[in-house]
Structure formats: structure tokens, C-alpha cells
């Protein structure tokens, strides 16, 4: 529908469809909702909104009375919530979207329950343990639900656990001599692994075939790797050889895979931004200090515009190839 809409509007702008006929053309193509579709849409919209409002009102109500409730009441409420979501999944059936949503909400409530448990009994557990156990406990549900959002939630939880562990102990798996860089390494190694695993798994499990997840994982991997690469160039710190190898491998593989194998313009645009950032940083660090200030500013302006123009032209060409 989005494709037809864009095409028809493009033809109308070109004059191939009269302005007065545009809406009719859109109606015929099915790009716009028909009259009989509106009641269902509005009923669904109001249903979701009403359910959300009632749910949040319940949360607000409990938040207001929280201090006055006994701890067993609080535990009971949370456990009832977890159980209720599981029961809802069982009643509705595994293939329905609502049942997957119910398990996701239940998974979130598991975390709330763990947090409340730690707060009530003062077990002395570290914050990282909460997120780690939370992530591990909901894995069986993620396997059952076959829902991409739930798996992404687990990745976020493990990410958080790793970061908190590193903050608490200052080292992880032998890393730790340079805390400023090692926190990037942790994010890079874990998210990079998840990214590769997700792309590989999505070829086998179609329910994982949602582009938003690997895109977010790519950002979580490429951003720290780009930052480290720039730090290696500017300050010559870190593990220069390993960083350079990993960065070049990411760029090379990324451009190859997302151009031919798994066409994804978003990824290509991200890699372009990364390459522009690194080259610009090299130029600023290595060239600008040796030239006059005015020439330096002028040079950087022209350089950045040229890089952006080159990247934009190439991406437009890729977009045309992928659209045709």
C-alpha cells in the first residue's frame, strides 16, 4: 500500500494523473482505507487506547497505595500479574499476537518481581545480578513465544547486566586495564555476536525476520567500534591492531552483505556515516594541526560536503537498484 501510494503521488506530481483524480486513483489502488474499513479501525484503536488507559490507571492506583500495602499483598499482586499473563497466553493460543504480547508483559513483570524481592529482603545482590537473572529466567518464554520483541528484551537485559558488572568490578574476562575503552569492547563483543546470530537465525526462523532488531544491534556494535577506531587513530591507545582489523572487517563485510545478500539501505547508510566520521577524524587529527586555521576550516567544509555527496549519490543508486 505504501509503495502504491508513493507511486501514484509521484505520477500525479509528474502530471500523468490529474490533480482532481489523485484521490480516486489512490482509492482504486487500495492505498487509502475504504469507508467500510473505518469502523473496524476506529473500534480497534479505541479498544487499544481504552485498554491501555485502564491498565495504566490500575498501575497508578497501586503506585499511589503502594506504601500502605503489606509486602505479601505486593508480592501477591506481582505474582498474580505474572501468572495472569501466562494464563492469558495459554487461553488465547500460541499463534495469536495478543498471546505473545501477554508473555512480553509477563516477562517485564518478572523483572519487577525480582527487583521488589531484592528490595524487600535486602539480599545484598548486586544490580547486575538482577538483570542477568531476569534475562535468564525469561528465556524459556522467549523460546515458547517465538516473538522477536521478547528476544530483543533479553539482549537489552544482558547488555545492562554486563555494563553494570563492569562498573562494579572494573574488569571482565581479562579486560579492565583501560576502563574507558573496555566498556566499549564489552558492548561491541556482545552486541556484535548478537547481531551476527540474529542475521543468521533470521534466515531459518521467519518470525525473526524483522529488520528493526538487527538494525538496532548494528548501531550498538558499529557505534562503539567506530569510536574506538577513532581513538586509536587520534590517541594511539587501545588495541590498535585488533581494532583496525575488526573495523575494516565490519565495513567490508557490511557493505558486501547488505548490498547483495540482504539488501538493506539503512545499514549501508549507517556504514557510510561511520566511514565519513572516521576519515574526517583522521583528517582533523593528522592534517589540520599542520595547516593554517582558515585553510583548515575551508578544507574540512569542502571535504565533508564531498564525502556526504558521494555517499548520498551512491545510496540513491543502491535505492534505485533495490526498488526495481
Amino acid at each position: 500500500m505504501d509503495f502504491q501510494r508513493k507511486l501514484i503521488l509521484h505520477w500525479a506530481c509528474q502530471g500523468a494523473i490529474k490533480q482532481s483524480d489523485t484521490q480516486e486513483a489512490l482509492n482504486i489502488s487500495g492505498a487509502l482505507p475504504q469507508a467500510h474499513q473505518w469502523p473496524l479501525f476506529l473500534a480497534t484503536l479505541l479498544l487499544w487506547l481504552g485498554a491501555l488507559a485502564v491498565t495504566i490507571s490500575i498501575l497508578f492506583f497501586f503506585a499511589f497505595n503502594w506504601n500502605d500495602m503489606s509486602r505479601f499483598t505486593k508480592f501477591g499482586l506481582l505474582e498474580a500479574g505474572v501468572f495472569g499473563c501466562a494464563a492469558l497466553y495459554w487461553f488465547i493460543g500460541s499463534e495469536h499476537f495478543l498471546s505473545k504480547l501477554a508473555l512480553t508483559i509477563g516477562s517485564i513483570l518478572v523483572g519487577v518481581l525480582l527487583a521488589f524481592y531484592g528490595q524487600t529482603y535486602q539480599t545484598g545482590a548486586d544490580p547486575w545480578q538482577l538483570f542477568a537473572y531476569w534475562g535468564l529466567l525469561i528465556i524459556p518464554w522467549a523460546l515458547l513465544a517465538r516473538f522477536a520483541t521478547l528476544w530483543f528484551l533479553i539482549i537489552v537485559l544482558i547488555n545492562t547486566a554486563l555494563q553494570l558488572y563492569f562498573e562494579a568490578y572494573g574488569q571482565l574476562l581479562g579486560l579492565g586495564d583501560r576502563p574507558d575503552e573496555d566498556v566499549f569492547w564489552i558492548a561491541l563483543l556482545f552486541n556484535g555476536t548478537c547481531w551476527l546470530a540474529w542475521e543468521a537465525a533470521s534466515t531459518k526462523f521467519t518470525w525473526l525476520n524483522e529488520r528493526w532488531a538487527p538494525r538496532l544491534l548494528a548501531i550498538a556494535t558499529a557505534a562503539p567500534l567506530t569510536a574506538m577506531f577513532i581513538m586509536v587513530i587520534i590517541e594511539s591507545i587501545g588495541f590498535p591492531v585488533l581494532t583496525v582489523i575488526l573495523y575494516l572487517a565490519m565495513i567490508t563485510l557490511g557493505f558486501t552483505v547488505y548490498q547483495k545478500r540482504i539488501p538493506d539501505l539503512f545499514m549501508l547508510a549507517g556504514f557510510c556515516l561511520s566511514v565519513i566520521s572516521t576519515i574526517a577524524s583522521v583528517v582533523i587529527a593528522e592534517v589540520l594541526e599542520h595547516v593554517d586555521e582558515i585553510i583548515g576550516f575551508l578544507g574540512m567544509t569542502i571535504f565533508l560536503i564531498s564525502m556526504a555527496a558521494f555517499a548520498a549519490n551512491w545510496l540513491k543508486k543502491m535505492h534505485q537498484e533495490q526498488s526495481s
Partner: protein
Amino acid sequence: MSLQQAMLWQKLHDKNLTSGDMPINKALDTPWYVQLMVGLVAWWSAFFFLGLIASALHFILDNNAFAILFGIMLIAIAYRLFLQNQVSTFRYQFALALSLAGQGLFIFGLFDFAFSHGHRGDNQLITVLWVLFVFESMLAWIMPSMIHRFGSALAAGLTLSFTLAYAQLYFMHAAILFTVIATIWLNEFNWVKHRERLIPIGYGLTIALIYQEVMASFYHTFIHIMKNWLKMEQSWLPYWVAELLIGGIMLWVVWQLLQRNNVSTRSQTGILALFASTVVIVLSTQAPGLAVGLSLIILGYANGARMLLSLGIVSLLFYISSYYYSLDMSLLEKAQILAVFGSILLLISWVMSKKFQPKQENTHAA
């Protein structure tokens, strides 16, 4: 030409809606993330360009008249570059950077001119803000660049917010913005030849409106900041009046969409739609942002504009989150309002599904 395109063209041709040959396929609407990447680098280069001006032509910054004139000159050059060559991305980027640098100089010169004698009065500030608003509005209209129009429209919307706030008309600009936004989206297909200009402006103003409604959620906090930090006077217009005005516009939107779908306002459907809208409007006086969010969703769905629909959904989620942190009411009061509101919406939803389900089933059976 893909098979899908050819089939669509043929379908429209059979209904006599097309004329001439099918236009040659070229890259349609560059995706937003490519535009974003290009925009980010353009900004980066604009900062270096401003640095160049500061280094080489520092006398321009010493004289605010020169700064204003030079800024306008850069924008004029950018305009010519945009017009001259819409295919060359290099020139497009350079023009964008020039315009951004020019706007920076203009704003610097304007503020320096207004406050150069050490005196800062509210009337002077309001005048400067009005000038800025007109300036950005003109740029949004004139400059032939999607990114530029979006950015200028967003800047104009935000400037209007501050301008009316200083003029003791807090939150009024939301009603003004919403009128413009609704007009653009309702006429997207009637004014299709102007959509390259109007759609980026529409999105820029939509983002500004969403921001404004979030501020309305933090009404008392916002008023506190205005009075104690920015030394503004008390508004003579309570925000719920602005919400009611927005509600009036929402009713207009619903009425227009009923007309578009040939549904009479006197029919059961029409009455139900208007009644549901009225309920939402009343609730919106207690839960700011509700009417705007729902209107954006409805407009997005009506026009098949997924980005607008998504913005509406995101804005509603954002308002609900900010509602929790709002200090205007206790959690209990908020819980009561949301419970009543949610129940009413569920009831309307149930009535609608009951009313329309049997007809659809009969239609399908036939």
C-alpha cells in the same frame, strides 16, 4: 519498470485516470535515514564553515548589520544552488551547509543588534522572536529542499511557542499549529502538485506540535520555569482553553473525513463519530495531548501516511509517560481520570464493533 508498477498503471489506465505514457521510474523519495545521514554531515560542515567565517571574516561578527546582511547573502546563494541543480548532491549539500551557516549569522546579528546596548526588555525579545518566526516561515516556504523545509518549519513552530509564551499566550500556538497541520494533511491530495513543499512543512510543524503538547502535560512545571527562570508574566489564558480550541479543530477534521467518505453527519455513523470525538475532546482538557495524538493517528490512517500514523502513536505513548511525572494531580486523581476515560473508550469501541460487525458478516455471507 517493475511488474507491480505496470499492473498499477494499467489498472488506472483502464479507469481513464492516467494520461500519456507512464513516467520513467526514478528513485522515489529518498528514505528518511539517508536524508538524516546527509543532514547530519551537512550540519557538521556548517559548523566548520562558520568557523571559517569567524577566522577569516571576523569583522563580520564584530558588526551585527554585516552579520545579518552576509547571512542573508549566504541563504540567497544557497537558494540559487538548490534551484540550479537538483540532481547534483554535491551542490545540494553545499547549499544546505551555506544556508545553515547563513541562518546562524542572521540569528547572531539579530540578537546582537537587539541587545547590543545591554538592555533586555520583554518587548524587544518578543519583537526579535516574531522576526525569527517570520524569517523561518519564509525559509520553510521558499527554499526548494525537503530537509530545509522540514527544519525551517520545525524552527518556526518552536519559535512561535516561545513568542506566544512571552506574549502571555501560553499554549495558544498549539491551536494555531494544529489548524495549519490539519489543513495540509486534509488537502494533501487536492494540492498534490505542491506536496514537495507542503509535506516537509507538515512534518516539521507536527513535531513542533507534539513537543508543545508534552509541555502542556507539565503545565505547572512549565509555568514555574517561565515565571522564575525566564521572568515571564502570568498567562491570561489557561491551557484548557487551548485544548478546547484543538478539540474544535479535531471535530472539523472528523467532519471533513466523513465528507470525504460520503458519510452524512446525520447518519448513525456520523453521529457516533462526532460523539466519540467530543468525548475525547472533553477528556483532553484533563489529559493534554490526547486530542492531538488521536487526530494525527486518524489523519495518518485516512491518508495512508504511515509516518504520520506512527508519529501519532508515539506521541500518545509519550504523553501517557509524561502524564505520570506531571505534578498537577496526585496519582490517585490521575488513576481515576484514566479509569473513567478508558472505560468510556472501551464502551464506545464495544458499541462500534457491535453495530458494524453484523453488517460486515451479512456482506461477507452474501
